[in-house]
């Protein structure tokens, strides 16, 4: 909306009555995940556990350990933690150097600063060299009302372009806990989006025996009318929407696809190929270059052509404001997911 707002910056605003106001919840941004239990800092705790088993793991952050849950690791294992200061380029260059010397660095910052500021350093020092650096980055997509400087709406598009980089977009605490040991064991570079703070437990409530598997898409819910192929917290939105739509007799299946690259094309093709279902992708990311386009290409090239729609953020710089307002405005709240799917049937 930057263009609209430029034209509106000389337009005085009305003061909203106190009772109708909403806070921006910019910094503390925990997701509104009504009805789910939460786990505090699952990444930090899982990393400590993994680091006890694997003494090659070290942690680095660029002045954001507290905001990426890495402070848990830093407090527990201070001699294995490097505070790199607010300097994202050396954060990733140094992680590359540590990896060359045989260590497995977990480097954290916000997704915007990894994808935008440090991209060249990640591409050349880490990914081209196939070094096992694990880049775990908070505030992916639209996870803060703080405006475009902090909204990593195109991180997946940026990183998908890098050959042999593994990309993970976990949904919940269970995904994060499962992901940490698996990406630590993976021999290559990994970019993971990080839900931080109080992270909801979503997937096991819908599928009690669910376990994260790197590289695998998994059916969380079956349904005969619609197949949602989703990633990140949009899987939670899809599951919540499915429960609402089920009351109207609309049966929505949800295929959770936390690994964006390499994409589990076999499972996606098998499910989308069953026929008779509208296929909808859902991601917390711009419509450009993310899961939607990756799935579209997969289907077209295989000659699988169901009715196909996308739920994603629009191709624009997003506004600042309260996060729930923005999720509604840009179509990734639960209610907007329900409304969009209904409209397409």
């Amino acid at each position, binding site marked *: 909306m930057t263009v609209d707002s430029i034209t509106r910056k000389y337009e*005085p605003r009305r003061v909203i009555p106190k009772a109708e106001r909403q806070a921006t919840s*910019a910094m503390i941004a925990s997701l509104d995940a009504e009805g789910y239990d939460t786990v505090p800092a699952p990444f930090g705790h899982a990393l400590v556990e993994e680091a006890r088993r694997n003494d090659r793991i070290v942690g680095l952050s660029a002045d954001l350990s507290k905001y990426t849950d890495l402070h848990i690791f830093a407090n527990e294992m201070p001699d294995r933690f490097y505070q790199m*200061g607010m300097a994202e380029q050396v954060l990733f260059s140094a992680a590359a150097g540590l990896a060359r010397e045989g260590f497995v660095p977990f480097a954290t910052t916000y997704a915007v600063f990894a994808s935008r500021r440090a991209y060249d350093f990640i591409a050349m020092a880490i990914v081209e060299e196939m070094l096992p650096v694990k880049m775990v980055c908070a505030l992916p997509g639209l996870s803060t009302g703080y405006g475009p400087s902090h909204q990593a709406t195109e991180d997946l598009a940026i990183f998908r372009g890098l050959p042999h980089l593994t990309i993970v977009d976990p949904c919940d605490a269970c995904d994060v806990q499962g992901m940490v040991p698996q990406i630590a064991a993976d021999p290559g570079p990994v970019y993971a989006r990080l839900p931080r703070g109080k992270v909801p437990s979503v997937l096991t409530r819908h599928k009690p025996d669910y376990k994260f598997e790197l590289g695998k898409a998994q059916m969380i819910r079956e349904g005969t009318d619609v197949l949602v192929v989703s990633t990140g917290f949009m899987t939670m939105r899809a599951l919540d929407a499915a429960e609402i739509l089920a009351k109207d007799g609309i049966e929505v299946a949800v295929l959770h696809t936390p690994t964006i690259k390499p994409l589990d094309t076999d499972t996606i093709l098998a499910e989308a190929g069953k026929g008779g279902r509208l296929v909808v992708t859902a991601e917390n990311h711009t419509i450009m270059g993310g899961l939607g386009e990756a799935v579209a290409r997969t289907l077209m090239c295989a000659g699988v052509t169901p009715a196909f729609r996308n739920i994603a953020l629009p191709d624009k710089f997003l506004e600042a404001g309260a996060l729930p307002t923005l999720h509604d405005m840009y179509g990734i709240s639960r209610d907007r997911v329900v409304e969009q799917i209904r409209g397409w049937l």
Partner: protein
Amino acid sequence: MATSPQQAGAIPNMSLELRAWNIRRKALRMGEVQGQGYIGQALGIADVLAASYFHALNHRPDDPEWEDRDRFCLSIGHYAIALYAVLMEAGILPEEELETYGMDDSRMPMSGMASYTPGMEITGGSLGHGLGIAVGMAMGLKRKQSDAFVYNLMSDGECGEGSTWEAAASAVQWKLDNLICLVDFNDQQADGKTTAALARVPEEGKWAAFGWHAQRVDGNDLEAVVAALDTARNADHEGPRVIIFDTTMCKGVDFLEDREITHFVRVEPDEWQKALDVLEEGKPQ
């Protein structure tokens, strides 16, 4: 304080102490509206902003895009609450809008952006951008044979970013004596003390070694701030100028100053009024 912002901006002889006090008060009121905000930073930098806008800067409140104005870049987007306070105090933003701070559809988002707010020259927030943009603006003003200055307000944390030092070297290369960089050295960044991270040697020596005219002063001593701004503008030096301001976070509200200071100072819902009361007691004559 029933003065409207337009009137306030037009009162020529209001003391800088009172300006700084007004800035602190407006920032606290915005924090109260939103229940949060970077209030520690705003209270710490209020004196520097008062001296900048009401002593140093050449600007026209009724025409924020006046071609001959001195430019003021807020590189540190999270300090926007402080800049909105000074823009209101200067009469560039109406004081009523204070109550929209950080709300949906506000012109005052929590992180400063040029497209939202009159008087906000650049979009900050992705830290390490301001100085480079200021370099280009200073180059542009020289090309246009303008006498205007470019001020860039940045933080000690930002001195960690490589881009800061690319810009610092560039400003010297292009002999930008119309560029004045203001660094808020509050010895705080997101994870802890700046001196415990990348600021292991005194900052002024680094800037001087790059070829800048460098000063370091107490950023909460208004007289010293004013003198440093005057020196920066008038110094007989071929290149850019920097002033490193040592500031105290939460300055002016003792119970917040005494709190264990972190990057994001928590203020409980009932403490906003208490902070305003404490400030009121210290109101300058």
